[in-house]
């Protein structure tokens, strides 16, 4: 372990150009290629892993995600390049002690001020999208969503329709497309999470608290939902579905299922395929806590 400090000084190539300069020229050539490729690739913005989803607010959240990701990609690439640069080109080549630079006020000020500007910009963009999401426009459909251990109950206000199911029974909320739907969310027992992936949205169901939000679906289809907040033994199985249908189909569905307060349990799930694990103890439907 004793000779760690003795290293040969950097060699010079036959042309008299130091190896460092040659490496820099080679790096420049390599880096030019991907930049050109990106420029030629066209103007579609990548998804960065997220999806636009099926509602108006999911789409604005998606665009916000893309904006954040472009910023993240630029900053991330810059920092990675800086680290790699130092690690590759400022490696120890001799025993010399480098210049003992301690500070550089203009540089430090730059990387204090620019990040502040960036995060304030991100915050401003956030506020715009957030205000859209928490807005409460007039709605034609209002549904009481009651989470309980370990299932969901959807009560259509003013329509005499109730859908309830637990764990793999996968209760299905049917809603019309292109209509504002208002949800009143609460829990009968512990904290649950109402999460629909295609809506880019989740909200806690809290006992004793009424959480209200509105959304407007723009695509038809069946979208999976699941509880995301740990709520006990069968938290992993607390599924539900949201089915977005045309206005006429919705009216028909309402008419078929309306009755004087009777409860309709939806069928066993077919697309979740976890029926191999079914709770043996009867789930509490409306415990009080």
């Amino acid at each position, binding site marked *: 372990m004793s000779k760690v400090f003795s290293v040969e000084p950097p060699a010079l190539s036959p042309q008299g150009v130091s190896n460092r300069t040659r490496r820099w020229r080679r790096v420049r050539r390599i880096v030019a290629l991907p930049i050109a490729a990106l420029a030629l690739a066209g103007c579609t913005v990548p998804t960065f892993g997220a999806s636009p989803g099926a509602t108006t607010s999911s789409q604005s959240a998606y665009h916000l995600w893309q904006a954040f990701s472009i910023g993240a990609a630029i900053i991330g690439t810059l920092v990675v390049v800086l680290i790699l640069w130092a690690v590759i080109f400022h490696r120890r080549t001799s025993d010399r002690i480098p*210049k003992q*630079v301690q*500070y550089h006020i203009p540089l430090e000020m730059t990387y204090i001020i620019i990040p502040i500007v960036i*995060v304030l910009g991100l915050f401003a963009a956030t506020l715009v999208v*957030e205000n859209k999401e928490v807005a409460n426009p007039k709605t034609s459909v209002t549904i009481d969503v009651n989470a309980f251990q370990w299932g969901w109950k959807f009560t259509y206000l003013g329509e005499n329709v109730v859908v309830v199911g637990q764990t793999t029974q996968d209760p299905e909320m049917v809603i019309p497309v292109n209509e504002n739907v208002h949800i009143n969310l609460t829990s009968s027992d512990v*904290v649950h999470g109402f999460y629909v992936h295609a809506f880019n949205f989740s909200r806690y169901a809290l006992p004793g608290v009424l959480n209200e939000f509105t959304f407007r679906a723009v695509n038809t289809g069946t979208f999976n939902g699941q509880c995301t907040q740990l709520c006990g033994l069968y938290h992993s199985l607390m599924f539900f579905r949201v089915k977005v249908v045309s206005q006429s189909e919705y009216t028909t569905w309402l008419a078929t299922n309306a009755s004087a307060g009777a409860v309709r349990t939806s069928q066993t799930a077919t*697309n979740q395929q*976890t029926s191999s694990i079914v709770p043996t103890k009867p789930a509490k439907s409306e415990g009080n806590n």
Partner: protein
Amino acid sequence: MTDVLDPPVTSEPRDHAHEEHHGPTGILKWITTTDHKIIGLSYTVTAVIMMVIGGAFAEIIRAQLASPNNTLVSLAQYNELFTMHGSVMIYLFAGPFAFGALANIIVPIQIGAPDMAFPRLNALSYWLYLTGSITMLSGFFVAGGAANFGWVAYAPLSNSINTPGAGADLWIGGLLLTGFSAIFTGVNLCATIFYLRAPGMTMFRMPIFTWNMLVTAILILLAFPVLTAGLIMLYCDRHFGTHIFSVQGGGVPVLWQHIFWFWGHPEVYILALPFFGMITEIIPVFSRKPVFGYKGMVFATMTIGALSLGVWAHHMFTTGVVLLPFFSLMSFLIAVPTGIKMFNWIGTMWRGEIWFSTAMLMAIGFLFTFLVGGITGIYLASPPLDFFTHDTYFVVAHFHSIVMALVLGAMGGLYYWGPKITGYLLNETIGKVQFWFLFIGIQVFTLPDYLLGLRGMPRRVGVYPLHPSWQSLNQLSTVGAIMIGISTIAFMVNIVYSWKKYPAGDNPWDGHTLEWFTTSPPPHHNFYRLPQIRSERPTWDYNHPGHTAAEHGHHPSNDEEVPVA
């Protein structure tokens, strides 16, 4: 200005080191010691054991998740597993390692103190930590099993109706003990740093690690009493018939979340700042330059500490009952000082003479890993983006990027300071094997989880639907976890292989700060002699006269070295 070329003045050393005096030996010595070095070593060994236990839980979790409807463990056991994995890792490994292990050993030596300010309180902190760990883990041996409500224990899930059984109470009790352990350590660190510095060691000449430990200690004092109060409230709800968190008694379940996260967010900075400090010690030494932007680092650390008390409800964005813009703005702002630190670390390496010991590799691995974790944290500061990533695997990936970066920092700290503490170096080749398995394993483990979260997989689930893309990503993540496990084994192998093999000497790395001036290991009361302290790098100044960075030091506008007057 005093000439740093003076020989060290040591006519009457402070509380000079004694010869080995006869005291108790063996286990009685261990039980009665108040020497911060032995206490710190006890903390280190216990914390590493906790890391292995928590890691074992993690491997079982990832094995369960490698297949969608796996029956390796039952759903009930799975809830216990992730609860105890998180609890052991955060409460019993990362925290105590951060402020009880290396800080205990290194802070006094870095400032030239003979010991911590309150040695017996220090020892008490260790015994509370050890007994608290035993208490929490003994939940596995009682009827009903260990705590199973997640490491955050949200009400009402954690009340006596939903989680009856002693496991939950043992979890609470264990945290009461470790909480007081932390508080006493916070007191000790503050007092030591404020009162026991050597002559010439002004506050702005302290090493950055010590500065970070000071801010950590202040955060501990601000945050941990809140957790303790919350735990007592939870216990009262469970056993004394109070209704603080239950709706039917007029209580407010979300109050638990406010109290928990008011502690919980400073806690993650309590975990992070010590490791930031370790990185800030390693990078200058292995770049052969001083810290770039020392004052900027100090102010960034204090800003992080201050802001960390104002962001707690970003863990509660989806409750619908918190002031979103306030917490969102504060959370965005806290990214700025963290970014300053990142640029200062790079600036320290820049135009240095970087050499890649295992400690430096760990530090560089930290920079990359923390970059990923930090950037994904910025997404989470935006409520609309948090609404669809909260409680999914995206968040799991984010915080694992952060804490695994801290583990890289911990390993760096052990390789860097291990020789100072034990007197023996660790094998560098095995260290490099450990590093590559750890660094690559971390990326293979976390990166698929980001995608899983974006594709809708919630957290804390033991089974998941048959989803082709979910299974393959989960399997990839499990491979990463296995690689991390292999790196831990490599670490254990290194300890055994290098046992007393490579004597280190006083200063194997040409270190800059005061701890490298004394012997390895340091004697009782730490210093036979002390050098002049005229900068934040007393040992470097002593070893490299003519290369000090004096007041107007090596400013880039100077082409020549500024001669030291």
